[in-house]
């Protein structure tokens, strides 16, 4: 049979595809449905958080920071409870990362606060002695792209049935409803509402003024995203 395959490259190629596809199928398919389920307590991202996620991706934060806590004592001591597959159900794409030049951020919302992020993004070495993280000063002046974030919300709600405007169950038995605007204007208003809550905890007067004037600097969106990582 091998001689025959060697003499008939087309059927050899098809055979190779079938063998490789079979390996992939038995590895991926049986667990795919379970792996795409959300775990209790996982809520979709709000418009502002999603805009912050875009800032995170745009600045390649995931090149140095992972978002995946492995089930080892040394990791859970440092970063909190190990990650579960269901916590990433609404992450598109995943930001697991592959290398920790900086620490893991999957639960950074549990142990860092708005004002800390503000100080840290301005000058990391001032709060973390010896930190090699660069400063991200432009985030305090650049404006977050709320429209794109809203477009992504609409897309995932339509094509992946992500539950916006619907109650999702929380760990303590309550429910949480993440609102998505019905129009671009409403989405911007919702984002601004959340931005005002963040800005209230911030110290930078320029950022506070910008938010009061209806603009959302990238840093506000990024902090909203950081705080949502729990």
């Amino acid at each position, binding site marked *: 049979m091998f*001689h025959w395959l*060697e003499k008939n490259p087309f059927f050899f190629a098809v055979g190779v595809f079938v063998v490789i596809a079979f390996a992939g199928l038995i590895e991926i398919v049986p667990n795919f449905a379970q792996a795409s389920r959300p775990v209790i307590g996982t809520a979709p991202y709000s418009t502002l958080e999603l805009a912050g996620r875009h800032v995170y991706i745009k600045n390649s934060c995931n090149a140095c920071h992972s978002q995946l806590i492995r*089930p*080892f*004592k040394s990791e*859970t*001591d*440092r970063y*909190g409870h*190990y990650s579960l597959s269901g916590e990433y159900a609404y992450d598109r794409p995943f930001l697991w990362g592959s290398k920790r030049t900086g620490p893991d951020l999957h639960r950074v919302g*549990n*142990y*860092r*606060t*708005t*004002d*800390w992020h503000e*100080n840290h993004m301005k000058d990391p070495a*001032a*709060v*973390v*002695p010896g930190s090699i993280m660069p400063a991200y000063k432009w985030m305090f002046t650049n404006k977050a792209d709320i429209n794109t974030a809203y477009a992504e919300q609409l897309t995932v709600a339509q094509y992946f049935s992500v539950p916006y405007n619907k109650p999702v169950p929380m760990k303590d038995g309550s429910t949480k409803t993440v609102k998505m605007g019905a129009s671009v204007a409403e989405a911007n208003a919702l984002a601004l509402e959340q931005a005002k809550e963040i800005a209230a*905890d911030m110290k930078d007067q320029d950022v506070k003024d910008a938010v009061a004037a209806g603009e959302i600097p990238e840093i506000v969106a990024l902090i909203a995203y950081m705080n949502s990582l729990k």
Partner: protein
Amino acid sequence: MNKLYLGGIIFTALMLVFTYISVGGSKGGLNGDIVNMLAVAGAVALVIITVFVVVKYVRQMQTDTAEGELADESWDNIGEYKNPVPMGWAIMFLGTMIWGMWYFIAGYPVNAYSQIGEYNEDTAAHNAKFEAQYASITGDKLVAMGESVFLAECKVCHGLAADGIDGKAANLNVRLEANTVKYVIENGSNNMLLGTEMPMPDRNGLFNANTGELITDAEIDTVSQYVANGMQGEGAEIFAGVCASCHGMDGKGMEYVAPNIATFDTALVTNVLNHGKKGVIGAMPAFDRLNAKQKEAVSAYITSLSAQ
């Protein structure tokens, strides 16, 4: 002697000398460290094995002649010998298959192995070890443990010197600073410092028993200085009239009523670590992932900072 062998030996010698120089020249050399020794042993082995293998195959290319039984096929005049499977390769192949069967059936069985379960076992073993080693430590050792936890978890906000990095977080070298006291008197507080909901009223709920009136701006300033000074100086009578009914005459608090505002203590620090805190500086998140002993140690360390 063949030129090839000679080259191999010279190259090996050169690499070994180079290794010796680079290890000897680096700070501390081997330093009696097992990892350093393993690294050097690995480097030496790598050089010798590489040279040996390269020399063997280059030699084979120079001297080997093709012989043996040819297979039937001729691929555009390119033939193939019917060589047997090398013994070493065959043994490794079989060994891998046996290991694979053990892996799927006994080691990490499909449908029965859980990574969370393995984590639970590791954690239980680690906790037992921690318990055996550290459960009963006190005094300086406890403070040293507290310092190491502080440097891992707390220094990113409170700073290496626990001074709060220019107002970015609370200065833990003193129990309270005047602006914090003032803010709490003016705005009240509800920070679960006793472990339960026990709100302190804002200035509209704080009467001065001496005058029978609400606390005044001047009184707030004076008493804030008094508390920040470590319960010393001007303002003792205001403290006695306004604060002492809950916080005690010495400011050390009362159980179930009010927290200690004169010094740090274990209960206070543990409650802050459990519930977090929000005040004039900003919010502190909860650090409830520390275990009870670690919280006690952090308390001991923080208490020791302001005890001198």
